[in-house]
């Protein structure tokens, strides 16, 4: 199993290029909501990029654009060279709430993307079971979502996003709805999993420590219209340890640097 995964980790991560992307939401009256202002961004293949910013600054908008849910007003986004116009086959998304379909079992929820793309079920099934083992949910495949805890449900949602082996994994505050303890466990497990899989990740969060802990790079966004105020490279060895990191002056230095921006902007 691991051999297969390490084999993939050199190649799976997608290259993302965001080129002068602007998004203005049309509203019934008035000039519309200017959510994103000329964003230029390159995400290197296999990098873990976190994005923090005040509420309403356009983080989810950026993610939706990358997921191809709607087109940007100006500019373009490329994943591995191909322009994102509608849903891109190389992109998987995890949202803030798990969005599991309650009438489907865990396994069938994970298989949903394959059904929609009419891909081979048998192969997908094997991969789904494999993913469940990796997130610590072995044997839960025929349970229904209502039988799982919040953390377990979000793990299933992560499996569902990973079933297609996406080159780019988009996560929009995936742990925002979880309690602190579960969140901590999910964060550490996510790092381990990502180290094995090697996808490019864009991880949106409100937690500064969460962002610094997970990322190679933290983007700090300004209030609306969103721009990237700070592009911070996090240089710390992996795998990281949540408890130890919080004692680490280097880690705390990064956290303080981000906080200071928020304080200057009046966000904190």
């Amino acid at each position: 199993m691991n051999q297969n995964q390490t084999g993939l980790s050199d190649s799976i991560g997608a290259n993302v290029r965001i080129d002068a992307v602007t998004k203005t939401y049309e509203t019934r009256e008035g000039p519309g909501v200017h959510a994103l202002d000329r964003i230029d961004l390159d995400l290197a293949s296999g990098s873990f990029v976190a994005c923090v910013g005040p509420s309403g600054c356009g983080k989810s908008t950026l993610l939706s654009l990358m997921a191809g849910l709607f087109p940007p007003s100006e500019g373009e986004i490329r994943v591995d060279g191909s322009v994102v116009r509608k849903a891109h086959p190389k992109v998987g998304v995890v949202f803030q709430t798990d969005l599991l379909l309650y009438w489907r079992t865990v396994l069938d929820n994970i298989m949903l993307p394959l059904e929609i793309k009419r891909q081979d079920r048998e192969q997908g099934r094997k991969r789904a079971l494999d993913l469940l083992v990796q997130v610590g949910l072995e044997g839960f495949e025929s349970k229904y979502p209502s039988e799982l805890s919040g953390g377990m449900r979000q793990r299933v949602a992560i499996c569902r996003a990973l079933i297609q082996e996406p080159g780019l994994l988009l996560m929009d505050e995936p742990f925002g709805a979880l309690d602190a303890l579960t969140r901590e466990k999910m964060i550490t497990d996510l790092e381990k999993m990502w180290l094995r899989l090697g996808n490019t990740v864009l991880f949106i969060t409100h937690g500064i420590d969460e962002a610094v802990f997970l990322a190679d790079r933290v983007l700090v966004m300004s209030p609306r219209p969103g721009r990237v105020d700070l592009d911070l490279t996090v240089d710390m060895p992996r795998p990281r340890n949540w408890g130890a990191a919080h004692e680490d002056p280097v880690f705390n230095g990064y956290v303080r640097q981000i906080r200071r921006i928020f304080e200057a902007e009046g966000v904190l």
Partner: protein
Amino acid sequence: MSVADNAGSTTVNNRKGKQFGEQAMLMLEKFAALIFGSAIILAWQIIVPLSGLSEFILPTPLQIGQRVVTEYALLLRHAGVTTFEVLAGFGTSVVVGVPLALAIFYSKIVERAVYPILVAMQTIPKIVLAPLLVLYLGYGWAPKITLAFLISFFPIVISTVVGLQSLDKGYVNLVRSMGANEFETFFKLRLPAALPNVFGGFKVAISLAVIGAVIGEYIAADKGLGYLQLQANSQFDTTLNFATVVVISAIGVSLFSILSLLERKVSFRRDSAK
């Protein structure tokens, strides 16, 4: 549970007593309606002869049951007519109501044009149209089916629309991000998510369709259970009158149960895993 907790004193006995008590409670819960219903019928059976009421005023359940058995063929023939009217009316409601609900859901214009009128019309008691329907459609099946249709149509449309509209936008974004088109979004997401509401509408509708058909038969008919009941009424045959009530109820309950069964086959209830 608290009863069970108090049962038995030694630990072994206590555990056994608890298990037994819990099982008894579960059985009681399962058959609560049956037990309660039987108790009422039993009381009826005992009290009526004691109070000296004649069969002509209030027959006993046993007399009614006997009558259902002896008039088996007659009741069945009329029940067939009524059931046909109910099913035809309900079927028309489904065939017209579900597509209309889809049109309302997918088209703003249809919604604006039709939905307010539908909601307003729900406040009209459709029963008052029955004499008019007889006037226009005659004495045959047509006015009964139409009345059953009119009366059962609204809950189907409205509950289907509500079911479709109540889906959280997040789910739509989710399947869109997987590359689903509207066709796939509908069948993988919208329809299964709406099914509990749709079946809720169907169940209300089938009960109403029975009412519609029987009322139609009251107004003008020469067959059907409503007609038979009026005949019994005019001949002061109270037992046969009650027997038709039993059969009409049986039709309603059976059709409702068939829908529930079908629902369990195709739709996963949110709470059934609890």
